[in-house]
Each structure stands twice: as C-alpha cells, then as structure tokens.
C-alpha cells in the first residue's frame, strides 16, 4: 500500500498545524462560528446531535495495521471506545471534543492519516473497490490512480469552495463494488490491447433527494489526460453549478439541466484550452505511486489445501462463513476474507477499540499488515492463505467478528440516523437491529441468498437506500418516525434506483414488512438461485404490493 514520503508527511503535518491555528482562533473568538464552520467541515469536523463528530479519511479504504491501532488508540483516548465505519470507506468518531481535535490530528499525522476533505463543499475522499488489486475479476488495479487523485484533490486551490460536495469513485473490475454510477464522477480503469491505461468517465450520478445514474461522457481518457480532464469537469461545475438552492447544487442537476451532450461539449471545450502538462502529475510520479501497489510477497500455496477442506467439512459454522465471507483471489492458494461488522442485532459498521486492535493484529499475522474498509461498512483482509482461514476464523469468533453474512440480508448498510445525525428525520440503527434479529437464523439467510437492504435516516441517502434491493428511508410524519420502502434498486454495474412500493410503516412494523416481502420473494422465485433483485425485475412491484397491503 501507499506509504507517505517526506513530502506527504510535511504536507499533512502543516495541515494539522493549520487546523490547530484555526481552532485556537475559534476558541479565542477571533474566528466566528459562521466562518469556522466551513473550515472545520473541510477537515471532517461536524457538529452532530450530541457532540462533535470527526470523520477520518481512509483513502480508497486501505489501512495498515499500525494505522488501525492508532484509530483504536484515538477511540480509547478521546472517544467512548469505538468508531463507526462509513459508506465512504471512512471512519467516524462520535464523541471528540473540539479542544482535543488538534491533538487527534497530530496523532493521525503520526501514522500518515488525516481528515482532509472528508466533508465540506470540496472534492471528498476518493473511494474504490475494497478488493482492488486482488479481485479475480479485476483488469487493472485502480489504487495508484485513486492515490494520484487523493494527492491532486488535497487542498486544491481552485476547487475548495464548490457549489456542493463532490465525490469521485474508481474501479478496475467488471463487477462494480465501488458504485461508480452513483458518484459525481465515476471512473472505470481499463487497459487496451497495447497495454495502455485509460479511463471511462461517468459524470452526474448520485443519490440524495434526486437519485440519478451517472452518464458516460468520455471513453478511455489517457492516463496523462486524466487530471486535466477532471480539472475541466470540475471547472465547468464550479463556474456553472447552481448556488441558489442547496438541493439543486450537485453536479447531477447541472448535467441534467444542461443536457449531457451540451455539458460534455462544455467540458471538452475547457479541456482543449488547458495547459495540460502543467496540470498532470510530474514525470515519474505515476510510476513512483504504482511502485507502492505491487503485489505482496505471496508464497507458493496450494489451492484448497486439505487442512482447509477438512475444517470446512467438520465445522458447519466455519463452512458457512467461508461460503458467505470469503471471496476468490487472483493468487492461487490465497483468499479474500471479509470481516462483517454487522453482528446480529448489532450496530452496523461500529467497531470497538478492542476489535480494531484485534483486526490489526490478525492483518499482521495473516494478511501482510493490510486492512480494507468496504463501502458496505465491513472490513477486509485481502491476502489470506487458504490454509490460514480456519485459524483466522477461530480468532474472529470470540470477538464477535465472524458473522457469516456478507451480502446477505443482515449485512445492511445503515447510516447513523437520528441516534447521532443532526440532519436525520428518523432513526436507522434500531430498524436495522430489528430486521437483523428477524433474520438471525443462518439457514434462512442462506436460503434467501444475496439481498442488499440499505437504510437511510433522511432524504440525504447516506445509507444508499435508493440503491438497495430493498431500500428503507426514515421520515417523520406529524412527529412520528415512519419508513418508506423501495424495491429494485441496485448499486453495482446494473445500477438502478429503487421504486417506492406504497405507504410507509412505523418503526415497529418495518421488520415485519420486510419479512412479508422476503416470504413473497421465496414463493415467487423460479429456483433457489434466482435472487430477490432478479425476481423484482421479472415480476415487478405488484405481487409485493399485494403481499404487503392486501389486508389493509
């Protein structure tokens, strides 16, 4: 993984010092709250319902063991002993004090981390495929380009006061695990027959109030032209994006109102006029970055070793975990082990300091000291030898980290909702907990198969409910929380926005409604392998509506 050189380190230390100075001026009263607010947001500091919240960047979801240990330390020392992994592959601390934040940033800088642009109307932390570099279906590792964009976008002088936030995601695989179609810019890395790298560019995707699927505006932009092309898109947006209405300020609205073709023409015109050599990375820089993303030193390992197959046949719980949580690896004899942060009835995405430390240790022991965070709020050990999987699993079980539910119905994306979030209209976590309890039975989960349930506590859609096979949106009607259900959304390469099925449900009734929907699906499917999403696409909403509302 990428390791800071002296330049990166100096930059991050200076940025921490700059924020310390801003906090001092705020506390002394020299800086007003109105002026401080955007400055603290650009450094990941929110004021939430009960406290400040700090969002720390985990660039494209990659962490080292020592970074994870430092996050655990911060959770212990400055917070209440836990953190929350988010859908943007970041981690949030829910209880830091403003007066401690400068020290926390210094502690982060000690391990090459920061909170730069994890919020605010600027280019946010670039996200990617959590299996980047190791997935069996990957054409090109996207991480070097994600890192290039991380550097390029950090404290960008031109693009720090955009109309609204701006999110970029990149993938190099055919299965899109980074939801690139739902980002302001989505990039698909490709390699042509000559072995050259290029990027398909999608623009104007997003969730929130007005969900839209991104449109492709460029095929195979070359590596040299990538940053200039991003400059052109961002400049068009910065100059023409709407600033009169916060809800219409994202680039998706600009693209929609301008029309894709005209927007593309504007971008191309700006792009043509740019002095490209000045805007691209200096010579040798890409190669330098790429040098960090070579594959680790895999040992020759046997595929499906006997110890592994034996453990599977003797231990049903382990076997379930392998089936659900372990994915195919590029390297024979190795596997991708996914660690679920969705224990039954737990808080999706939360990890305690002890769990973080344990994962850090296990990563060191079994996975070259590297950890990934997925946008589905789970952790990944990306290079585990198959013969080590059983030991790894045994170490995860007592820590509550071995739930065998990746991609299953209880692996819900859930935003913090009204338990923490100042913008929320309803709670998300208790709803997720009730659903999780309802589907706790492992056999039933396995029978249901892949089903993505996604929950947001308000229309901002941080819980990606639009992209859920089943989406749940928490709203407030006459002072009561209620929940709207959508069906048929999808966040991957078949990106689609879910459709509202009908009148909403109270917090107590949501889990029951989901139960009804799932039972209906089981009745409707042609064979066990037909997924929930496939059935919804085949039969439409009607049969599900009937099941839900027939006796009402």
């Amino acid at each position: 993984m990428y390791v800071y050189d002296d330049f990166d380190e100096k930059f991050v230390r200076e940025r921490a010092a700059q924020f310390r100075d801003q906090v001092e001026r705020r506390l002394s009263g020299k800086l007003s709250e109105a002026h401080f607010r955007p400055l603290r947001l650009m450094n990941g500091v929110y004021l939430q319902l009960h406290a400040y919240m700090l969002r720390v960047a985990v660039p494209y979801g990659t962490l080292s063991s020592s970074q994870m240990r430092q996050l655990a330390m911060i959770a212990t020392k400055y917070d209440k002993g836990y953190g929350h992994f988010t859908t943007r592959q970041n981690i949030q601390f829910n209880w830091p004090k403003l007066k401690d934040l400068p020290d926390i940033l210094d502690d982060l800088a000690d391990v090459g981390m920061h909170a730069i642009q994890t919020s605010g109307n600027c280019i946010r932390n670039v996200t990617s495929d959590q299996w980047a570099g190791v997935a069996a279906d990957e054409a090109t590792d996207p991480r070097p380009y994600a890192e290039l964009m991380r550097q390029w976008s950090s404290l960008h002088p031109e693009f720090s006061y955009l109309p609204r936030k701006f999110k970029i995601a990149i993938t190099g695989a055919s299965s899109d695990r980074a939801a690139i179609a739902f980002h302001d810019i989505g990039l698909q890395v490709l390699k042509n027959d000559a072995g050259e790298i290029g990027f398909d560019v999608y623009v104007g995707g997003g969730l929130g109030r007005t969900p839209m699927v991104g449109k492709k505006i460029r095929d195979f932009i070359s590596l040299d032209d990538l940053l200039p092309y991003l400059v052109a898109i961002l400049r068009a947006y910065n100059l023409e994006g709407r600033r009169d209405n916060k809800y219409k300020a994202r680039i998706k609205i600009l693209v929609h109102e301008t029309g894709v073709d005209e927007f593309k023409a504007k971008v191309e015109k700006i792009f043509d006029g740019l002095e490209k050599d000045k805007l691209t990375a200096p010579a040798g820089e890409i190669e330098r970055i790429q040098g960090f993303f070579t594959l680790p030193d895999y040992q020759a390992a046997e595929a499906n070793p006997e110890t592994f197959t034996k453990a599977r046949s003797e231990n049903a719980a382990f076997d379930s975990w392998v089936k659900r949580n372990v994915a195919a690896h590029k390297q024979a004899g190795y596997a991708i082990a996914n660690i679920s942060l969705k224990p039954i009835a737990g808080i999706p995405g939360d990890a305690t300091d002890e769990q973080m430390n344990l994962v850090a240790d296990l990563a060191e022991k079994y996975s070259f000291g590297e950890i990934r965070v997925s946008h589905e709020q789970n952790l990944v050990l990306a290079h585990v030898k198959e013969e080590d999987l059983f030991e790894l699993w045994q170490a995860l079980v007592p820590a509550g980290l071995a739930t065998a539910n990746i991609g299953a119905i209880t692996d819900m994306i859930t935003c913090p909702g009204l338990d923490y979030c100042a913008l929320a209209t309803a709670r998300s976590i208790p709803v997720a907990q009730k659903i999780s309890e309802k589907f706790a039975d492992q056999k039933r989960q396995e029978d249901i198969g892949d089903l993505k349930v996604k929950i947001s506590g308000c229309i901002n859609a941080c819980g990606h409910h639009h992209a859920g096979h089943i989406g749940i949106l928490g709203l407030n009607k006459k002072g009561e929380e209620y929940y709207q259900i959508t069906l048929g959304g999808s966040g991957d390469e078949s990106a689609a926005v879910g459709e509202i099925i009908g009148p909403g449900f109270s917090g107590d009734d949501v889990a029951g409604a989901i139960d009804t929907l799932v039972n209906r699906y089981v009745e409707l499917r042609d064979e066990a392998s037909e997924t929930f999403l496939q059935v919804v696409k085949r039969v439409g909403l009607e049969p599900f509506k009937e099941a839900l509302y027939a006796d009402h």
Partner: protein
Amino acid sequence: MPIIKDGALIEDNWTLLDEEADVPSSADIIIPLNVMLEKAERLSNHSGRIALLISNDIAVEDHADLVAKADMVVLELPAFTDGRAYSQARVIREELGFDKELRVKGDVLVDQAAYLQRCGFDSFDFDGEFDAETWKKSSEIMTTGYQRTYKDELETRS
C-alpha cells in the same frame, strides 16, 4: 475597506465608477463590465488607468479582448463560500495570459488568502478587519501543495 497586497495594507487610489459618477479623466478607475460594454465611448479620453470589474456569473473568456486591455482585473467574492472567482482567476491567468494585477473583492477570509493567491490573485479588497499578524501566520502555514499553479510559491513534489 482595506486593500492588502503582499501581506500588508496598501494605499489604494482606484475609484469605482458607478453609473453616472463624475470622475476626473486622470483618475484610476474600476469599471464594471456591463458599464464598459455599454459606455466604452465615454472612456475614449480617459487618461488614468482603467480596471475591469467582472462579476462571478460571467464567462471571462468571452471578454478576452477587454481583459487584455485592462490595467487591473477585479473579481468578486460575494460570499466566502462562493468559489466561482477561483476558476475565473485561473482562466484569466492561465488561458488569457493576463499578467497585471488581479484583485479579489468581497467576503475574503484570511484562511482563503493562500488559495486565492495560488489561483492568481495578488491583491485583496475585503470586508472586515485586517489583522496583519493573523494574515501572515495563516498564509504561511502551508509551505507545500500538490498542485502546480500560477506563480506558485509553494513547494511541490518535483
């Protein structure tokens, strides 16, 4: 309103020309773009310097000829969160090749000065009090930057 250049307060002798004001023909004047477009003939005998004030909803490249003739260009920051002038500045510097004074006027925050400078501005006409010490400190904290920009004084990765 204070004008800051190179981190210090300076004497300003530019006068903003509004609609019908009478200014001596030898004065240094700032003229809004729309006035310039409509009343250019009034200025034919003007002997003082002429600066162009461009609001932030204007595509600056459409007025390349006026920019090229101006002795100074002034861009606006009506609210410190409105970042259009940053892009306008880069277009004026990097594409139109304007190399005289570029000024930003409005709700400038001290914490933005360095960003603005990197986009090509060299003077600030801002609402609010000027505190030289804070200005100096906050514009000097970052000595590094990842992007190469106009007249960049920051250390970049080479």
